[in-house]
């Protein structure tokens, strides 16, 4: 159901959408049934003159089963949901497939710096390409990202990938994704990070192999990655001081 509202562009996004549908069918059935029973009872047992209510304690076994049986059904449904969610969680967060390429994502108040590995496919080499607020990736390649923060908590969120991971200062957190569709979408910071939190967006550009290599070629011609990385890692001088706070609207 989620894909009606937002496309899915990653390999594990479909699994998460499937989990949503599964939970919706299971809890939706129980939810509607319970609501129907409540409204039926309210109507059926409305006050009528001369009709006295029944005296039931709910402690007798034959009475209590009316709440226990639905309750066993809830347990069974929970078990199904747990099994599926754990399986998908393993795929998304724990079993990282071997990478085709690596990127480094550095969050800071209130920009994203993306370090692409460049033509050699390795980070921390001279041909790295650092960009601010746009991330270029290639369709059908498996990426590992190294997520870092320079100041406060941020959260690397790519809704079309169904991907989200907090960036914690002092740590490097590794995750993965594999884009399956070309296009350009939002990257969000999904963790409150201060006055500029509402501006901390970026774009992800998923490209075909051909246009990705063209982009790569353009970058190497204009500047070396190292120089840009050094330049952009400095905190951009954005006007987010207390006095200029008023300029946001």
């Amino acid at each position, binding site marked *: 159901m989620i894909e009606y509202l937002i496309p899915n562009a990653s390999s594990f996004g479909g699994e998460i959408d499937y*989990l949503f549908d599964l939970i919706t069918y299971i809890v939706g059935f129980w939810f509607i049934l319970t609501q129907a029973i409540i409204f039926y009872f309210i109507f059926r047992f409305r006050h009528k003159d001369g009709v006295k*209510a*029944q005296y039931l304690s709910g402690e007798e076994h034959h009475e209590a089963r009316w709440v226990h049986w639905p309750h066993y059904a*809830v347990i069974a449904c929970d078990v199904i949901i747990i099994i*599926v969610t754990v399986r998908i*969680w393993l795929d998304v*967060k724990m079993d990282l497939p071997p990478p085709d390429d690596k990127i480094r994502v550095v969050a800071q108040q209130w920009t994203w710096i993306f370090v692409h590995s460049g033509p050699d496919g390795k980070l921390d080499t001279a041909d790295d390409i650092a960009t601010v607020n746009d991330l270029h990736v290639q369709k059908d390649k498996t990426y590992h990202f190294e997520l870092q923060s320079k100041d406060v908590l941020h959260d690397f969120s790519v809704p079309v990938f169904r991907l989200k991971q907090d960036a914690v200062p002092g740590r490097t957190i590794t995750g993965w994704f594999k884009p399956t569709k070309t296009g350009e*979408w*939002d990257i969000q*910071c999904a963790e409150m990070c201060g006055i500029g939190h509402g501006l901390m967006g970026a774009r992800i550009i998923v490209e075909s192999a051909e246009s990705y290599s063209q982009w790569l070629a353009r970058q190497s011609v204009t500047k070396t990655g190292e120089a840009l990385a050094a330049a952009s890692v400095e905190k951009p001088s954005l006007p987010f001081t207390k006095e200029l706070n008023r300029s946001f609207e």
Partner: protein
Amino acid sequence: MSDTGIAAGHAAAPHEHHEEMDFWSKYVFSTDHKIIGFQYMFTGMFMALIGGFMAYVFRMQLAFPGESVPLFGQVTSGDYNMLITNHGTIMIFWVAMPVLIAALGNYLIPLMLGCDDMVFPRLNRLSYQIFLLSAIVLIISFIVPGGGFGGAWTAYPPLSASAEYNHTDWGSSLWVLAVALEFAAFLLGGINFLTTSMNARAEGMKMMDIPIVVWMINVAVILFMASVGPLIAGAVMLFLDQRIGTSFFLPAGGGDPVLWQHLFWFFGHPEVYVVLLPAMGVVAEVITTFSRKKLFGYKTILYTTFATGVLSFTVWAHHQFVSGIDPRMGNIFAVTTLLISIPIAEIMFCYVATLYGGSIRLTTPMLWGLSFIVEFLLGGVTGIYLGASAMDVYFHDTYFVLAHFHYTFFPIAIIGVFTAVTYWFPKMFGRMMNETLGKIHFWGTIIPFNCIFIPLFLLGMAGQHRRIYNYNNFPDLATENLQDLRVFATSAMVIMLLFQIPFIVNFFYSLFYGEKAEKNPWKANTLEWVAESPAPHGNFKELPKVYRGPYEFSHPDAKEDYWPQNVPN
């Protein structure tokens, strides 16, 4: 009075002299549990007006970004952060907590247990005074240089720990101070509730004769007292980080920001049950009374309440699935989180079963009580999505979480409170509320409530993340369709706020001019209905004795369809 043991020793003025007290000692420095309950209630309602106004301002900003909001003006991103942060803080800590636990606990526990006051009346008064101080500190934090704290109500460091990051040097420290003071106040109150319930019950009242709302308030305060320690410790550490430069939560000095999240949520999740349980207890009282039915499965409800309480300590890290904790923890907490749906579902089933075979009258309190069940169910089932760790990867910090949360907390803090106020109003103030105005208020609140939050589920599913003052900065979220949903939710919100006027009119009109209430207008069984309406200082002319459980409605041996606890035959 003498046979209630400890209660006999308290220092309140003798009952026969209470009318001589001047205004100050009767209403301001009173040790009477009912007056203290009212103090909490009115302070909570006043804070609810502030919290509601904040919601109005930031919802207007979201619907019409950048335009001047009537009664407020331009909303900057700093203002927006401050408004959402303090809306959350106020509604949970200064509305739900004081009204549901402190006001209802104070008002109901001695009355329902058939004793004349709390066992520690002065401690009780001190508890309110510290609470009032905490509210004042919080309000001052809005107007200090730099403005109020804007780092979200969860106050995650490093943002909250350093003025360099949050730009609210004083605001963030006063926020932490206010929260810590407030917790200290409730600790004092909690001790009092437990001791009173254990030691000062009316003669003949066995443990299984205690009304379920009193049980639930007691379980809630146990949860509160057992969980709040780590957070108070955390608040002190955060305050030290802010003010004297320690590094408990700052990685630059060797600290760990994720530690705060554990301390916060170790308290924060039981806190959900701390406010949920009293509201569920209130609903139990109301649905039994107005369906003239014995509560279905009293002991089952009681034991599942205990189970919920124990389990609520094992689920906290489901708020942290993507926070950088070891992913293996995700599996453990997904399992415990889904497990906690089991006792809560059981309690809900018992409530529904209570309606079966009843004689249901849809009075205003009953409408509120039933709507609690109906609305809370949606809050409950949407929790399953978020407890499923893999699903939470997508929904974490989106409007889906926000809508889920409000489908639990709105029933708790708003519906639960209106259920309680409309039900006990005759006992509190000796007059009946107007039913017509009550029903207008009910429908005018419930319908817009659903119109606010159902669109927000959809926005969350579309990937809209929280705490953003202007979605035009995110091209995928700036579409016309999504903006229409935001405008719709905001319009419903304004309508809902306007429909609170009938309640305020009804409340104050009935307070002075309502029809006089008899002792037991709803023909209920519990002991508070034995006292005069309004209940005088000292509560009962002579302390009642208890002969049976609290829910003996429509008993075949009873002459009428109710059988009060204090009637011998």
